């Protein structure tokens, strides 16, 4: 049985995502959303848990991202669904900066 190990993937350079902004980045089949909340970076799945839509096509207000299709809101720091129609949280991934590179840890 193979052991799966999380791996760090480079998704951009520091400065690619400015405070108050979010950006989409795909790694293989993972569609990711990167957020810069007052200088701190966070990462979630980019697909809304309610219907197929990219959160990065929506609206970021503080630490809450609103899905463009039906207004579901998520706290980007924890992935927690904040309001209907979302009932499931979105997945979050560890994110770090190494030598000026933004890296996200994804399951292999």
């Amino acid at each position: 049985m193979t052991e799966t190990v999380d791996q760090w993937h480079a998704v951009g350079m520091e400065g690619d995502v400015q405070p108050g902004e979010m950006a989409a980045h795909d790694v293989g089949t993972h569609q990711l959303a990167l957020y810069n909340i007052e200088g701190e970076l966070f990462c979630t799945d980019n697909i809304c848990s309610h219907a197929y839509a990219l959160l990065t096509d929506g609206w970021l207000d503080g630490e809450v991202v609103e899905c463009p299709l039906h207004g579901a809101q998520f706290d980007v720091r924890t992935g927690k669904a904040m309001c209907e129609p979302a009932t499931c949280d979105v997945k979050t991934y560890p994110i770090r900066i190494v030598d000026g590179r933004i890296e996200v840890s994804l399951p292999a």
Partner: protein
Amino acid sequence: MQRYVIIGGGLAGHRAALELAKCAPGAAIHLLEDEDGLPYDRPPLSKEILNGTKEAGGIVLNGAAGYEKSGITYCPKTKIIRIDRVGRRVEAEDGRIFAYDALLLATGSRPRRLPARIAGDAEIHYLRTLEDSLRLRDRLVAGRQVAVIGGGFIGLEVAAAAIARGCRVTVLEALPRLLARAMPEEVSIWVQGLHEREGVDIRLSAGVDTMRREGDRTRLNGAEWTLLADVVIAGIGVVPNAELAAEAGLDVADGIVVDAFCGTADPAIFAAGEVTSHPVAGGGRLRIESWKSSGEQGAIAARNMCGGAETFDEVPWLWSDQFDANIQMIGLPDHAARHEILGDPASKAWTMVSVDGNERIVGGIAINRGRDASMLKRAVRNGAPLTFMRPESAVFAP
């Protein structure tokens, strides 16, 4: 111990029950519902359930499975036939009595039906309940000719689902354009283009005069046309289930009349959701058919039943998903002095912003522009000027 009774297990009643459980933890809460099964979400009934991408188990409202743990007694198959305001009790058809200290009416709406002189002996599908949706889905078989009476949101969403299932679809709209009741003309034209590109046969100014069975099929006749269909669906509006309130002497005028606190003239009776006629910002009152509004109003009514004094003045907002299009309407574009279009209305994505006489945004419609929808919600709430949506036109003082 406080006794709360809610009549209606739709979105408003469900949200109210959960909210009551939060703000009145020791109270007795009864949620009474006509239908069988747990409360479920209605928007998928004309979309995912019909096109087969979701099943009944997937649309149960969040929190409904945990009613008992939250202290909510849920009573399905409970049809309430009378409210005794003096005795503060409601009576079910089967004789059960539920006493209350505070009562919430969240009875929603039922589909408007075609009059008998038009419908004749025809079998017509109306869409309101999960049962309706599952029954209709079984009939939407590839190759069948489907007639949709009504070019409003329901009719158009059903048309899209029927096309997805391989049916041939004709939409019959009595007025000269689609979505005439809710939308401005530019949107009607765009939506018609969308449906026609997907193969829907749209007939405008095509009111149905008579219908009758012809073997397994249905003959529909208009002034200058006739159609033979295998399946007929009618989406011609809804009627508020306000009879219970009217018979109890409560004020009813296109819905149960409530104040900004979701209260009726009876201090022990509140109402929330689609069944209500409530005050709206800017004056006047409306009966709004919107998912978001129903849930919010249910929650606010519940908090007010526990002694709160919150006004329900939510910015109206609704969505409609048809084929791959997402249409969102925010605020009250009807109340606008004029509309401004952002983007190209002949393209796949554009936005209409509606402003009042002072160029303040009162509403808008976002066609595949969800970000604009989010901005419009904030704009309407804050009374923002048009430049909020169109920053390039802002004038900067020297």
